[in-house]
């Protein structure tokens, strides 16, 4: 449950100094691409905030998003976010089960009406009255609508919640849809990826705590701090692309020399995410650095777009749609799609206000 004390008071009682706050704030400012001088304001904002009630709903998903956000093995600066929130409901992580678990969700909603954040991973099946995924006798649709009714904001994490993801892939047997297809009267932040980068999830929550507002979003409702640039633009192999030096197969000399993976299907040029800068597993590496092209998992319908190993330049019609504004032939389709999403986003934000 949320505490009446501020986070600053709570953590001071536990011996956590303001220097630690400032260190966390410096880290947060860096991952949010804010100037280092913003750290003081972030530290102050978090210190003055109350523990944020979070209700985490898991629908048609694989638990990879939860694995991603809880991936750390040792207590560290990156984990402080878990001291800043009160995770009041999460199927996988909570001790309570059955009726007690559902009571915890209802209590959190009542005590924090208008203030709690709903995090959702997984898509919602609508076909056949939603019978393909139920929890505590409720369909995912019923639970989502009930829980979001009094929420401050909704964060959809993972490509299933943001765009339908793998459950929504052709032929979409359960009629899976994204959260934004159902919830239209609340601010929704999409953090796509399969799974999303953990810092993108924790950094967004830290932003909400620090500033009490929604971060700047792109046309797909994703925070610009993490999704503002194509992986290709920040890729360390980019200079090889610029020089026309491409691996032709995964075991040729070009691959051994670390050349660009565009011709073996890399979707980096049309994928917007922070993999090339934040990387994975504590900054160790990311798929391209490990020798495999980007799958484009943070983009809508990535699963159905022509094959992971086909280069974008020879992709199918569907893949051109995937390429959106970046591919020449897909530019018109991409622009129209972006416009629809932007209009929808504006409408939601307007109604939310």
């Amino acid at each position, binding site marked *: 449950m949320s505490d009446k004390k501020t986070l600053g008071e709570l953590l001071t009682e536990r011996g956590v100094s303001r*220097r*630690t706050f400032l*260190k966390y704030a410096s880290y947060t400012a860096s991952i949010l691409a804010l100037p*280092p001088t913003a750290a003081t304001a972030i530290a102050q904002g978090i210190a003055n905030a109350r523990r944020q009630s979070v209700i985490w709903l898991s629908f048609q998903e694989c638990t990879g998003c939860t694995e991603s956000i809880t991936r750390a093995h040792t207590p560290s600066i990156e*984990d402080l976010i878990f001291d800043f929130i009160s995770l009041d409901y999460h199927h996988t992580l909570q001790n309570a089960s059955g009726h007690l678990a559902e009571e915890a969700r209802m209590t959190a909603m009542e005590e924090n009406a208008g203030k709690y954040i709903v995090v959702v991973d997984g898509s919602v099946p609508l076909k056949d009255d939603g019978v393909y995924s139920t929890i505590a006798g409720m369909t995912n649709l019923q639970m989502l609508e009930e829980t979001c009714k009094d929420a401050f904001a909704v964060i959809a994490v993972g490509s299933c919640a943001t765009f339908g993801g793998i459950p929504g892939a052709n032929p979409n047997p359960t009629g899976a849809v994204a959260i934004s297809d159902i919830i239209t009267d609340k601010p929704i932040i999409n953090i796509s990826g399969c799974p999303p980068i953990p810092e993108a999830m924790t950094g967004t929550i830290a932003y909400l705590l620090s500033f009490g507002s929604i971060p700047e979003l792109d046309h797909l409702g994703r925070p610009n701090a993490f999704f503002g640039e194509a992986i290709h633009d920040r890729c360390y192999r980019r200079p090889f692309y610029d020089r026309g030096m491409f691996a032709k197969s995964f075991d040729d000399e070009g691959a051994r020399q670390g050349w660009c993976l565009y011709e073996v299907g890399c979707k980096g040029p049309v994928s917007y995410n922070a993999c090339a800068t934040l990387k994975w597993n504590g900054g160790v590496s990311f798929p391209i650095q490990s020798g495999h092209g980007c799958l484009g998992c943070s983009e809508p319908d990535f699963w159905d777009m022509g094959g992971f190993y086909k280069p974008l330049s020879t992709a199918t019609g569907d893949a051109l749609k995937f390429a959106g504004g970046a591919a020449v032939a897909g530019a018109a389709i991409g622009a129209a799609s972006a416009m629809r999403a932007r209009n929808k986003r504006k409408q939601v934000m307007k109604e939310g206000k």
Partner: protein
Amino acid sequence: MKRDSAAPCLSDRATGMARSVLSEINNLLDTLAATGEAGSIDLRSLPLSDVDREQLEEMLGQGEVRVEMDLAGKTEIWETTFPGVWWIRHRGAADKIATEEIAVCRIPEILMTHPVDIEAAAGRLRAELETTNV
């Protein structure tokens, strides 16, 4: 800090970025000297190659002050051979670098004790004096 990469890449080469960062530091130092206004550069946000980073660290060197802090993981701070230019390195999980910045200031804010911590310290010491017979 060497990249643990399966394949060679351009990160193994100097790009000239170190000199650009040094020029920016020079401007920030001028501002600090003239107005007292502090500034900083987030090194993580820059496309520095490993060689660039090594060049930058070597050119700035280490000066008179070096501090190690234990704040949810290690933090290392040193003043470079250019007074007023501080290198701040925060480490996170598994001792990896979580963020790194160059601060151009009289003293980095994180080294100063926060008033809230001073107040808490006074209260704690008073409580201990009341319960001990030292």
